[in-house]
């Protein structure tokens, strides 16, 4: 599903974000990216989504060479990739329902599809009763659920998560991880960058550890350290 071959990325000022990184992630896998701040986790994720382009090496996502892809194809790549963030990136003036619907509306899905898909996904993340609330009326955990609903409503092949529990307390984090686990079990590949030791240690999934842009460790049922 995802393959990196000798990928390097250097930012301005010789900041090495990724150095000769190679990895292969199969369909349906759940992968944690761990490592200290600045170790290249975010860059790893952003390269998969073509938010960044690698300086060297080759990245293949869902059978497509991401680096060689012409820019007009990028939106179609992103329709197969859900993306969630530490800060949720919800639109503050839209309700929960509208935020999720927005993700479908702007890729031109017919209204009929939106009317059936949005309630279904809100049911999945457990927010059916809060569909008419605005984001600032929700708790952090609820906001992250909305963001997951928006990322998953189009049933992407891959879900990328950059520190999704970074702003949440441990109890709420567990709830979010249960949801991501459930999504993963439905066949979606999940790649999650995190600092959260207890989550990684509890889930016992594949762990890729980065250190100053280099892949230090890649274990199939790893722990944080």
């Amino acid at each position, binding site marked *: 599903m995802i393959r990196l071959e000798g990928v390097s990325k250097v930012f301005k000022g010789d900041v090495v974000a990724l150095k000769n990184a190679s990895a292969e992630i199969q369909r349906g896998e759940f992968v944690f990216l761990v490592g200290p701040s600045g170790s290249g986790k975010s860059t790893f994720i952003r390269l998969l*989504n073509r938010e960044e382009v690698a300086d060297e090496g080759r990245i293949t996502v869902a059978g497509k060479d991401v680096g060689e892809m012409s*820019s*007009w194809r990028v*939106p*179609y*790549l*992103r*329709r*197969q*990739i859900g*993306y969630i963030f530490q800060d949720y*990136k919800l*639109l*503050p003036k839209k309700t929960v329902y509208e935020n999720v619907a*927005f*993700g479908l*509306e*702007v*890729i*031109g899905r*017919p*209204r009929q599809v939106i009317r059936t898909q949005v309630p279904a996904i809100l049911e999945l993340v457990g927010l059916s009763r809060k569909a008419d609330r605005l984001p600032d009326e929700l708790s952090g955990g609820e906001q992250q659920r909305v963001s997951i609903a*928006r*990322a998953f409503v*189009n049933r992407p092949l891959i879900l990328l998560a950059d520190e999704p529990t970074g702003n949440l307390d441990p109890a709420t984090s567990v709830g979010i991880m249960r949801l991501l686990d459930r999504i993963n079990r439905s066949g979606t590949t999940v790649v999650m960058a995190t600092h959260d030791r207890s989550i990684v240690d509890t889930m016992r999934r594949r762990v890729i550890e980065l250190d100053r842009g280099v892949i230090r460790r890649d274990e199939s049922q790893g722990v944080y350290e």
Partner: protein
Amino acid sequence: MLSRLWYYVRETFVSLWRNLSLTVAAILTVAISLSLVGASLLIREGADRATAQFQEGVEFIVFMRADASADQDGAIRDVLDNSPAILGYSYVDKAAAYAEFQELFSDKPELVESVTAEVMPPSYRIVPANPDAGNVAEMARQFGEQPGVKEVATATDAIRQIEDFSNRVSQALLVAAVVLVGVSALLILNTVFTAIGARRQEIEVMKLVGATNWFIRIPFMLEGTIHGLIGAALAVPALFVVDDRVLAYFQESDAVPLFRGFAVPEGFVWDTSIWLLVIGGVVGMIGSAVAVTRYMDV
């Protein structure tokens, strides 16, 4: 497809409304600059028409008094027929003068009704053998002294006055208009830029979930195009005011007889209006296209 169209329309109008003060400024600037463009075009056309009777080598026109006697008329015609200094001439009798008057002022029936063929001055449009300005002036002076002649209009005098007038005015207007059209484009660019800034978060999310670049751009480009079109639509009535008040003022002026021909048909005003709408739309589209390509790295 229909829902997408609805999305574009809704997003465009929401954005127009959110940005109201800048939107109004942009629209008014477009309206003023296009009014000037239109006025300039009308004055140019008016001048062309006013000097139309001096085409095909006609250098001066002898207007006879409406009540000139047949003898007086015959004397003039005698000179014209026999003088080697005259290459040719055409006679415009009362009926023909009236017909021409009717045509020139076809959009002002009250003016046409106020005169009859009987009061129209018949005239000779004269092509001299030597079109040199000094020679024409001398011949005009001689004809002017003949009994029965009301006045002599020379091409050199009259055309120079009209051309000078219309060139100065229409060029000044055009320069101002070009500057203002540029200002409008910049203002539209800024308005659209502000609209993009106000929706930065939305655009970020749109890109992340895989909206195409054109899907993101179209509402902003529509917004700029609408600024241009509304501005142009406001300039259209201004054009009719120019036609009705300014050109009409010259037609009624006694200072220069030829200004009486300073009129443009209504069809020309409508044609110009369509051009203004096209210019407005294009300026808006260009301004917003620059804004979306420069400030929205999608």
